[in-house]
């Protein structure tokens, strides 16, 4: 086993990306994710990589599109307002079927919002974000270890399905330090015959493009893309189940709030309340099946999130409204406390509201 080191979540993303063969980082600084750029600025020049601070987020994401078209592993990172700026480019990347990693270390919104942690970009991340019919695979780390592991996994998924993958973190996980065992060095093992690598006069031109003026062809590419999405929904769902065996209440929470919820669940169990947690690790594809199965066993769900109830809608869809879904939230950069979550669990257990 490799030695564990202490790292900030943001630094773990950067180091894991480098170890995954990413040699192109294009970004623009914004709190609370700037450590990613700072780390890349220091390391990339030493390993023949490219660190480039673009003149804007829009410029950075279009550079990512360009690198992605060559089949090289590439990433950008930003925080909520910056991710909004990148949406046009992300839609183009999705529409061109090229792989890339986009990291969103979320902060409070809407607008310029604040710089404290948030999960209120859930809709934007899971429902498309930019224009047109498309999805990102969205991974939600809850520890510094997962910041590293899921970054590594994200590059593989992006290559495998030829699509943009988002790491949806938040300011807390980005800023905190925990022991982390860094992933092994690796490179892409996926053949990329579609990539723009120069024909050397030995093959036909490859074309990377998201423009289809032929409507039938555009419809066909959309249908084909959604066939791929169906495979992803079948094969790539990730979640953690915690104390669910005999649970009568199911908390659903991801990222930092899942950790807060675990504290509350352990305390509630001490008080004799049968409560468990389903922690989505992928929020697209959403872990519908385990939630639907839980719906037959529990009397209620509680969505613990740092938004006004965005994931709550996915829980309702997943459990087919078989059981009530309650909301326990803080927003605007505030984080729910274990006591707040415990109080909600006790309230739901008591059957009020």
């Amino acid at each position, binding site marked *: 086993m490799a030695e564990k080191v202490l790292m900030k979540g943001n630094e773990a993303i950067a180091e894991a990306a480098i170890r995954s063969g990413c040699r192109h980082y294009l970004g623009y600084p914004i709190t609370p994710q700037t450590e990613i750029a700072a780390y890349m600025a220091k390391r990339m020049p030493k390993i023949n990589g490219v660190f480039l601070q673009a003149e804007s987020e829009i410029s950075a994401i279009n550079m990512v599109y360009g690198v992605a078209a060559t089949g090289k592993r590439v990433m950008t990172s930003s925080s909520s307002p910056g991710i909004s700026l990148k949406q046009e480019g992300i839609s183009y990347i999705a529409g061109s079927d090229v792989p890339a990693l986009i990291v969103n270390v979320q902060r409070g919104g809407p607008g310029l919002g604040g*710089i404290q942690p948030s999960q209120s970009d859930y809709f934007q991340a899971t429902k498309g974000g930019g224009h047109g019919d498309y999805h990102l695979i969205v991974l939600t780390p809850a520890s510094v270890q997962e910041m590293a592991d899921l970054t590594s996994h994200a590059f593989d998924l992006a290559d495998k399905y030829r699509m943009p993958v988002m790491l949806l973190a938040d300011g*807390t996980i980005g800023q905190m330090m925990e022991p982390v065992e860094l992933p092994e060095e690796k490179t892409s093992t996926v053949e990329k015959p579609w990539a723009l690598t120069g024909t050397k006069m030995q093959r036909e031109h490859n074309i990377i493009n998201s423009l289809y003026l032929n409507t039938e062809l555009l419809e066909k590419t959309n249908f084909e893309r959604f066939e791929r999405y169906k495979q992803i929904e079948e094969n790539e769902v990730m979640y953690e189940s915690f104390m669910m065996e005999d649970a009568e209440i199911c908390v659903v929470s991801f990222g930092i709030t899942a950790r807060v919820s675990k504290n509350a669940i352990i305390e509630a169990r001490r008080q004799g309340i049968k409560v468990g947690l389903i922690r989505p690790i992928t929020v697209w594809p959403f872990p519908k099946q385990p939630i639907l199965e839980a719906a037959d066993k529990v009397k209620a769900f509680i969505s613990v999130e740092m938004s006004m109830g965005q994931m709550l809608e996915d829980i309702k869809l997943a459990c087919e409204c078989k059981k009530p879904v309650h909301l326990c939230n803080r927003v605007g950069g505030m984080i729910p406390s274990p006591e707040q979550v415990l109080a909600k669990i006790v309230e739901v257990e008591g059957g009020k509201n």
Partner: protein
Amino acid sequence: MKTEILLAGFGGQGLLFAGKFIAYKGLVEGKNLSWLPSYGPEMRGGTANCSVILSDDPVGSPIVANPDVLVAMNLPSLDKFEKDVVPGGMIFVDSSLIERKVVRDDVKAFYIPATRLANEIGAPTLANMIITGKLIKEAGAVSYDNLDDALHKVVSAKHQNLFDLNKKAIECGYNYAD
């Protein structure tokens, strides 16, 4: 066992660094841990604090609302966080910078003139490590053994003189009796 520590003071006093050292000490001892800085529009001279949790079990929430141990290196920090310490907890006060005493009588207070001591031992920027030395002695969250292992993780080998000074400061605080 689980210990939640909050270190608070002015930016530039090295509270984040002290927290990182304690975290590494925990790592070397095989503990689970988290280190979380306050981050905001802060700068040198502004307020800065960080939370460190050391635990035998995996750490859930990394946020410390009610610390077992508070280190206060300026008056605003003591004013702000004194009430949050758990009953029976500990408060470490830099008594060269904070004139008032801890008001609560259900916590243990330790007064260390860390800034003055730091000047006396020729390490004026290391009051943070002096108070950390006292914390190691009294709080029992991490041990005093093998300081070098943890210190090497936070002070690079290139700066041997800084390494020695940090160690001297920790020892000074550890051996200080009020």
